[in-house]
């Protein structure tokens, strides 16, 4: 095993969780590698000699609180808060509203970003006369529009 294989097994070595073959490899590696030697000393220090681990005592009046909670259950995060599905629905609803507002604003006159030169003649006519906001369009009105446009272009 190389240094990079061994370095992540040091904690297992300290704990005696490695099999005999791996443990012997670590033992052979340690005298040659100052880094692993340093790490193993530090890991032993912090892992094995764990301080007397603080035990927490139960919060006071636990039974009284539980009794109160059972007789009067209130919504909190642990019991869901604003429910997940409601949150999802709200998020989707907001996105839809934003989409429709954006769509509407995009269709307002003066919100065009494309230069008229890039429009096809049919698109130009539709946009110039806001035909896209009305429906249905009669063939007559399209004909009139074409005549008007060609007259304006002269």
């Amino acid at each position, binding site marked *: 095993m190389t240094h990079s294989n061994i*370095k992540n097994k040091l904690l297992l070595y300290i704990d005696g969780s490695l099999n005999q073959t791996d443990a012997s490899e670590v033992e052979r590696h340690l005298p040659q590698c100052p880094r692993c030697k340093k790490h193993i000393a530090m890991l032993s220090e912090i892992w094995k000699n764990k301080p007397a681990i603080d035990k927490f005592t139960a919060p006071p009046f636990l039974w009284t609180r539980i009794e109160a909670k059972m007789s009067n259950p209130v919504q909190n995060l642990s019991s869901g808060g604003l429910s997940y599905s409601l949150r999802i629905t709200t998020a989707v609803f907001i996105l839809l509203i934003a989409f429709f507002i954006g769509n509407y604003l995009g269709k307002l006159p003066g919100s065009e970003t494309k230069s008229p030169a890039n429009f096809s003649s049919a698109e130009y006519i539709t946009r110039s006369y806001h035909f896209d906001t009305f429906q249905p369009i009669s063939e007559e009105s399209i004909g009139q529009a074409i005549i008007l446009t060609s007259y304006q272009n002269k």
Partner: protein
Amino acid sequence: MKEQELLRKLISGNQSAFKELIDEYGSMVFNVCCRMLGNRHESEDITQDVFINAFKSIKKFRSDSKLSTWLYRIAVNHCLNYQSKKKRNRWLSFEFFSATESGNIPEPVSNENLPDILIEKKETEIIIQKAINSLPEQQRVALLLHRYEELSYEEIAKVMECSVSAVESRIFRGKQNLCKKLLPYLNQL
């Protein structure tokens, strides 16, 4: 014997038996919640929910396991559910983008203060616990129960509802990953 008697009273719906259960196991449940959540207030809330759940489902308790194992299982599941719910809620409230993961190991402190670090065992214990909390769920639970609750592999297997060999493998991989996470720290020392 005492446990059997308590259990019999619990199943019959005896109120004072519930109080007795809390007196006996309140600290144990609170401890495991604190270890898993790393937050006292949340742990208090979850501890209450664990007992409420235990009261409601006492009839489902299989007497082949210990009451403590059963309570550990409810507590661990409650904490995991709570954490995933919290993660989802945080994402939906857009806090996800600003908040840092609670299980992340904090940035190492500057080199001038280093000699004190190893002496200050409590501080290193906090680092270890944070590193454990940043491990994948199964490894994290197994390691927390092993290191802080000092449960045997058999007991952990009962709490996690898996085989002893699965616990062994989770703890083995957990320690390996933990080592990976701790080494950059040690390099700063």
